[in-house]
């Protein structure tokens, strides 16, 4: 019998992230700031502590990252707009019930402008392409209620070309199957109602094979376990209705053992330094596994299920039933 999920401690940990600005590390991660706020907020919501961070301050921060030239959000007040930070901004505002602050037509234009001829999306004008950005575009457009403006065939066509011989998906055409890329491709297909593009049995098995003897999940064969795969793998399996193929008991124990019992937060694996990225994905994984005391998470959007349901965007995924203790 291992440790339980120390929710109060993790809440304090997330709150403290806004305070430790006196070192280089905080500044070096400025390019992730918007994402970090989204990760922190989502974790708090799933742990049922929405009010642990100030709502107005957070909304002000998000809006201070608006890049009026590009029509999107940057990661930080003086950073150029990027599709990733734009999605995080939208997700935060949706969860804070403040989407009315967004100039929706401009953001939709910004997102659509990043689609390439091949169907994939670039992250920004610099042109880096990745199926992550494709998922981000689909997710964002759907949250904004403008999915109908997307060329679905073109988008799905690219995902199809990223499908590998093992049933998995990569970052680009020809790239190796990797659990996080599997998640983005499967989740994008779920939003677009095109899950028939997936060989669900084969991929479900490939995902189940990510579980290692220590209970943790890895991202590709012969690689190490990492708590973040508790989300990438598990959410994909939830969308494919195959969460039972993962040994829930062992994975739960693994995630819980990666908590930092002193400062709070969850690390990539037991004994390592925690960070907000692994904290949300550990909590998200536990939610999908039915861990008691947590709220339901929508695996397609990685946001509270209740929020997604209220927008009429819930898809046919299944998670394990919530245990009562």
């Amino acid at each position: 019998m291992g440790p339980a999920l120390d929710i109060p401690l993790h809440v304090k940990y997330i709150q403290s992230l806004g305070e430790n600005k006196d070192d280089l590390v905080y500044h070096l991660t400025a390019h992730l700031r918007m994402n970090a706020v989204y990760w922190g907020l989502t974790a708090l919501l799933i742990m049922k502590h929405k009010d642990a961070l100030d709502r107005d301050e957070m909304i002000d921060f998000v809006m201070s990252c608006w890049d009026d030239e590009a029509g999107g959000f940057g990661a930080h007040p003086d950073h150029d707009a990027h599709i990733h930070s734009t999605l995080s901004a939208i997700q935060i505002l949706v969860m804070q019930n403040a989407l009315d602050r967004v100039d929706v037509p401009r953001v939709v234009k910004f997102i659509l402008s990043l689609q390439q001829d091949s169907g994939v999306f670039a992250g920004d004008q610099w042109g880096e392409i990745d199926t992550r950005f494709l998922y981000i575009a689909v997710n964002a457009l759907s949250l904004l209620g403008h999915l109908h403006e997307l060329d679905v065939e073109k988008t799905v066509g690219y995902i199809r070309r990223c499908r590998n011989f093992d049933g998995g998906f990569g970052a680009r055409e020809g790239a190796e199957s990797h659990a996080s890329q599997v998640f983005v491709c499967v989740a994008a297909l779920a939003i677009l109602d095109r899950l028939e593009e997936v060989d669900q049995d084969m991929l479900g098995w490939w995902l189940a094979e990510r579980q290692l003897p220590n209970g943790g999940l890895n991202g590709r064969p012969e690689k190490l376990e990492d708590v973040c795969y508790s989300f990438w793998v598990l959410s994909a399996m939830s969308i494919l209705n195959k969460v039972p193929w993962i040994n829930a008991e062992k994975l739960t124990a693994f995630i819980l053992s990666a908590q930092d019992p002193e400062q709070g937060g969850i690390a990539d694996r037991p004994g390592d330094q925690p960070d907000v990225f692994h904290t949300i994905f550990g909590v998200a994984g536990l939610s999908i596994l039915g861990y008691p005391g947590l709220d339901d998470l929508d695996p397609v959007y990685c946001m509270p299920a209740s929020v997604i349901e209220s927008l009429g965007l819930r898809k046919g995924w299944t998670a394990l039933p919530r245990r009562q203790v």
Partner: protein
Amino acid sequence: MSDLLADDSEWADVVPIRQYENVNPIAPIFYSEEYKDATDYFRGVVKTGEMSPRVLKLTERVIRMNPAHYTAWQHRYKTVMALQVSLEDELELMDEIATMFLKTYQVWHHRRLILTALNSVDAAARELVFLKTVLENDSKNYHTWSYRQWILVHFNDEERLWAGERPYVEELLEEDVRNNSAWHHRFFVVFSSGVRAGDEDREQTLRRELSFAKEKIALAPNNLSAWNYLRGALEHTHTPFTTVTAFVEPYTASEPPATDVVDLDNPLPSAGAQLPCVAALEFLADIYEEEGGEKTAKAVEIWKLLANEKDTMRKKYWEHRIRDALQKA
């Protein structure tokens, strides 16, 4: 002796822009003097739109301190193109940075942009050589591999680029037979990016690939990548799994067979291999399921063994296979 640009007369004409010039931050930031100095001046030159040799040096300085600073990369690329810097020189300079920061997306995207601008097979060939040195440090680096795959497709030169790939993969698998990235790359090169020169006889190509996979499985049977490759090659060519039954069976026994006979088509598990091999059991069950009829019962037997003994982690998955097969029967 200060290293700061603020103390360097060469930069006296630039107005540095502090972080949060016009914005009320959630909380103040303090960070290392050098990084603050470099990024203050960087913001200054972005504002004026300067693209000069000193800006090249400045972006390099910022990148070395923070390789994920994608605006610095963007501005560097624009400056490189505006100044018409030798792109070969730029790549070479970036070699060191790529090696230091090989897990950063931006490092690779920058190289891709430069290579696109160079637009030469010579440059692509040199790049493939450079990537080998990076992969020596981190043989499974996802960005490096995906970049390699892009180069091959984009420049598409059989003799100078594609030809060396299969031998390279073999080298890597000699070093580490469990390198999933190398196995993926082999599949990519042989099956999913057109027909390689010399591989026009597809049946012979398949025979060779099956033989390769079997040889590697014999060497180290408990290697999911190799079994996935075998499976993938058969499925891709619509070849029934039953064609490899004789190969798979010995791997499902608890001990290697007592025989001196060497069957080159069906290499046996090497001495010391852990048997039975779980992946082989799975494969044999799939073969029986494919055959159907009375063989289904044998598949079910294997799945029960996996569920209850050999692969209990995935018990529910094996139980699903049983239910599924019995339903269809």
